[in-house]
């Protein structure tokens, strides 16, 4: 129970933030905030050793029992690793932000509120065992990320970036919800653990592949995979602590987490393997290729994040293969899961530190444009050292942790060559090549980042600020992260034992019974015979050549016009949705009542006539019809002539009088068909109505008095004809198929005995069905009052005048 509530600790603490910000302005609010992630990190760290003996920790808070909704916190190796990353890096980022954001100039209460909200959301995503609560937290990360990217909301670019990330991640989130519901339906449970347990049977469901694709859409949009990566570079408008935290270490790994968490369920399908592996590889290459095009420091880092996420994703794809192979070669694919998690840790360390350095450079020089920067090495030695460690680790050089994970990556990609299932025999061979080329580009952009910022010659006087080393407080967090980069290189197996293996157990529960069973050790040096080593050496050489000749080949980026980019496609889609929907609604929302009436009548006719046909409504029988007498025919002729006169009259006066004639002939019908009360009422009311019509006619504006015949319009006529035919058909059909006799016999029998009256119609009106009459009286009185109101009240004119006087 406490474990679940701890997920909500950050957001509950966040409620105090505005208070602290307003009441204690002398202390930077960040210091109070720092306590939350730091204490949570310490708390989760205690789980590391406990988990080995105890197994996963579960705690449930029932939310809506009748709908089977609950918040379930399930802490196993994978959740724990992510929780530690979230709280640990969260603490470092808060520390960094204390020095980065000025307490007098910035709206810190907003910033830290959003950040703590995000922390809750992220902890919820990684600890949830319940699919719906996972989705809730997932969307909360989208929302808090939206708020954080748009933190400087008076800048256009921030708002654009925030909106773009929101649109794309929420699109993916909704798709994912669809996938979740399908899976929950297949397995009849919302619990991921229970679904994993019944994984083999789920695959037989016809919706399995659909659910798989929908869930992957969610994961790919969140983790900025190809082609959904476009929001991430635009999200760089966020303050740098946010970029470091959300857009490198935590939120973008939510998709990775989801893929890893659901691998036991979906890995059985070849679609999963191909989609995860394929999109990972494309993203890896695409991101690393376009990182070299960027001129903004954070832009380079954004594309490198995209690329590295692709790398992790591709290894998860390879890890999924381990289900399909036995024997010796399966070891390598087991290895891939280990490599993915290991690189995930490594990436969080070096990318976090690089973002913080980019923020420091921005803070101290006033620009992030790499064309203006250069030569900061001597001025900012500590930042340079941290940046060098981070970049070289990202490039995959020893003695940094990136080297180890890159070697592992090559090993697992090379193994794909040998795999023969699912068409891998045709495509498997090119996978290591793509991976290698991407690594070359990765190496090149790491050099590009490092060299052009710190080493290349430049004129400092051009810079907006005079550069100098950052305050020590700002450097603490990047130094801690960079030291992890180095430490992990030397103790990879300790990290492996405590952090990676328990997480691997969660990804591949079918293969192992406990984390200690996993016998994978990371070696820094494989010997000179290993292909991986030579691949790395080749990466260094080719990457160096690529970087040094960059000026010559950089033109290829301009070969493909901007029009063909995904950003352009996104912009066009947004524009088309906006303009298109406006056009569409302008097309039919003309503002003319006549058009709306035409739609309505046409639809009524179409629906009724179709239903009559489909339900076989045409069964005409004329067995019970009355005879046609001479009077009736005469009245029918009067009525038709009257109606025609209304239609064809030049003068509206004639039309009004003809309407009166129609009304009186209806009264005559009532007489003929034995309805004396109706005839009386109809006569009186028709008279009054005609008088009212004449009143309205008398007040008609002068310019409309010029009489003209109603112009004939074929569309109107066709619709009117349709309605007429429909009513006739309905009447004939209903007349011919009377299924039950009238209830009126009861009224006839009891009108005197029960109600004491002789006029059955009147007794029905005031006795049997008196309520109708009551409300009919109400209708009349309301109409009367409304008429008085309309004539007497002249509010609008008075208002107009008073406005004019002002």
């Amino acid at each position, binding site marked *: 129970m406490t474990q679940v509530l701890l997920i909500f600790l950050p957001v509950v603490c966040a409620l105090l933030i505005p208070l602290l910000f307003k009441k204690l302005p002398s202390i930077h609010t960040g210091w109070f905030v720092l306590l939350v992630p730091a204490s949570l990190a310490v708390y989760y760290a205690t789980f590391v050793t406990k988990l080995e003996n105890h197994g996963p920790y579960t705690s449930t808070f029932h939310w809506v029992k009748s709908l089977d909704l609950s918040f379930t916190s399930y802490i196993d190796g994978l959740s724990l690793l992510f929780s530690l990353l979230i709280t640990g890096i969260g603490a470092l980022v808060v520390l960094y932000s204390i020095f980065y954001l000025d307490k007098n100039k910035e709206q810190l209460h907003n910033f830290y509120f959003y950040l703590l909200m995000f922390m809750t959301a992220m902890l919820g995503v990684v600890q949830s065992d319940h699919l719906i609560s996972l989705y809730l937290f997932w969307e909360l990360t989208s929302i808090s990320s939206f708020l954080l990217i748009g933190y400087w909301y008076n800048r256009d670019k921030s708002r654009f970036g925030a909106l773009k990330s929101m649109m794309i991640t929420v699109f993916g989130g909704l798709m994912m919800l669809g996938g979740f519901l399908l899976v929950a339906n297949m397995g009849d449970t919302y619990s991921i653990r229970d679904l994993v347990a019944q994984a083999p049977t789920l695959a037989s469901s016809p919706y399995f592949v659909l659910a798989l694709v929908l869930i992957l859409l969610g994961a790919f949009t969140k983790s900025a995979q190809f082609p959904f990566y476009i929001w991430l570079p635009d999200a760089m408008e966020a303050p740098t602590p946010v970029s470091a935290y959300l857009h490198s270490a935590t939120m973008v790994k939510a998709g990775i987490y989801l893929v890893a968490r659901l691998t036991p369920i979906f890995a059985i399908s070849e679609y999963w393997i191909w989609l995860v592996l394929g999109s990972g590889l494309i993203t890896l290459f695409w991101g690393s290729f376009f990182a070299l095009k960027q001129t903004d420091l954070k832009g380079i880092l954004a594309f490198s994040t995209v690329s590295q996420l692709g790398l992790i994703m591709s290894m998860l794809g390879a890890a999924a293969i381990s289900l399909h192979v036995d024997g010796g070669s399966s070891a390598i694919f087991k290895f891939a899961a280990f490599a993915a998690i290991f690189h995930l840790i490594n990436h969080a360390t070096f990318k976090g530190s690089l973002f913080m350095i980019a923020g420091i450079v921005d803070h101290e020089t006033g620009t992030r444009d790499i064309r203006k920067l250069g030569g900061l090495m001597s001025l900012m030695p500590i930042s340079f050292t941290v940046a060098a460690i981070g970049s070289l680790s990202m490039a995959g050089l020893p003695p940094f942790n990136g080297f180890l994970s890159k070697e592992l990556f090559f090993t697992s990609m090379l193994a794909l060559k040998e795999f023969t299932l699912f068409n891998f025999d045709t495509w498997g061979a090119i996978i290591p090549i793509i991976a290698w080329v991407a690594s070359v580009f990765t190496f090149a952009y790491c050099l590009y980042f490092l060299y052009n910022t710190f080493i290349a010659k430049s004129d400092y006087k051009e810079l907006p600020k005079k550069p100098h080393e950052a305050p020590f407080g700002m450097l603490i967090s990047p130094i801690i992260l960079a030291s992890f980069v180095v430490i992990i290189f030397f103790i990879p197996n300790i990290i492996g034992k405590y952090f990676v293996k328990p997480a691997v157990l969660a990804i591949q529960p079918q293969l192992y019974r406990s984390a200690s069973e996993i016998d994978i050790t990371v070696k820094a040096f494989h010997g000179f015979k290993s292909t991986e080593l030579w691949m790395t050496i080749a990466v260094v050489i080719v990457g160096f050549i690529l970087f040094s000749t960059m000026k010559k080949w950089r033109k290829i980026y301009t070969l493909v016009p901007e029009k063909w980019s995904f950003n352009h496609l996104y912009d066009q889609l947004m524009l088309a949705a906006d303009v298109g929907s406006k056009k569409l609604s302008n097309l039919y929302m003309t503002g003319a009542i006549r058009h709306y009436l035409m739609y309505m009548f046409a639809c009524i006719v179409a629906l009724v006539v179709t239903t009559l046909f489909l339900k076989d409504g045409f069964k005409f029988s004329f067995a019970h019809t009355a005879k*046609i007498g001479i009077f009736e025919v005469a009245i029918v002729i009067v009525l038709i002539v009257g109606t025609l006169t*209304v239609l064809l009259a030049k003068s509206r006066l004639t039309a009004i009088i003809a309407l009166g004639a129609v009304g009186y002939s*209806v009264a005559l019908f009532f007489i003929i068909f*034995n*309805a004396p009360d109706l005839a009386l009422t109809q006569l009186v009311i028709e008279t009054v109505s005609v008088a009212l*019509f004449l009143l*309205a006619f008398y*007040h008609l504006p002068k310019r409309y008095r010029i009489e003209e015949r109603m112009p004939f319009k074929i569309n109107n006529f066709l619709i009117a004809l349709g309605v007429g035919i429909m009513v006739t058909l309905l*009447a004939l059909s209903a*007349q011919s198929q009377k299924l039950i006799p009238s209830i009126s016999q009861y009224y006839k029998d009891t009108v005197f005995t029960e109600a004491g009256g002789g006029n059955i119609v009147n007794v029905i009106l005031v006795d049997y069905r008196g309520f109708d009459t009551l409300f009919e009286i109400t209708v009349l009185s309301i109409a009367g009052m409304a008429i008085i109101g309309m004539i007497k009240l002249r509010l609008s004119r008075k208002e107009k005048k008073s406005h004019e006087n002002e």
Partner: protein
Amino acid sequence: MEVLMAFVIGFLFMAAVYLILSKSILRIIIGTGLLSHGAHLLILTMGGLTNDAPPVLAEGAKNMADPLPQALILTAIVISFGVTAFFLVLAYRAYQELGTDNIDELRGKLKDD
């Protein structure tokens, strides 16, 4: 007789709809008047047309016309009268205030057009 009435009612509906689709408010109201006539006759016809006596007990006739549709129509007549009266005064006020009878001219213009 019912068959003939069905055609008459169809004709009334057709004329009413045609008038409702016209541009002049007065003609639209005339159209609604015809529409309610059509509807009332439809109720009466569907109740069954007979040449029996009116539904009044005092006359002692054996076969009486069905009283229920008549009660329904009576209610409907009064309600449609109320609505028509309101509608007419509305039209009268619209002429007074806006000086037009043409519903096409009563359209509010969209700001961004």
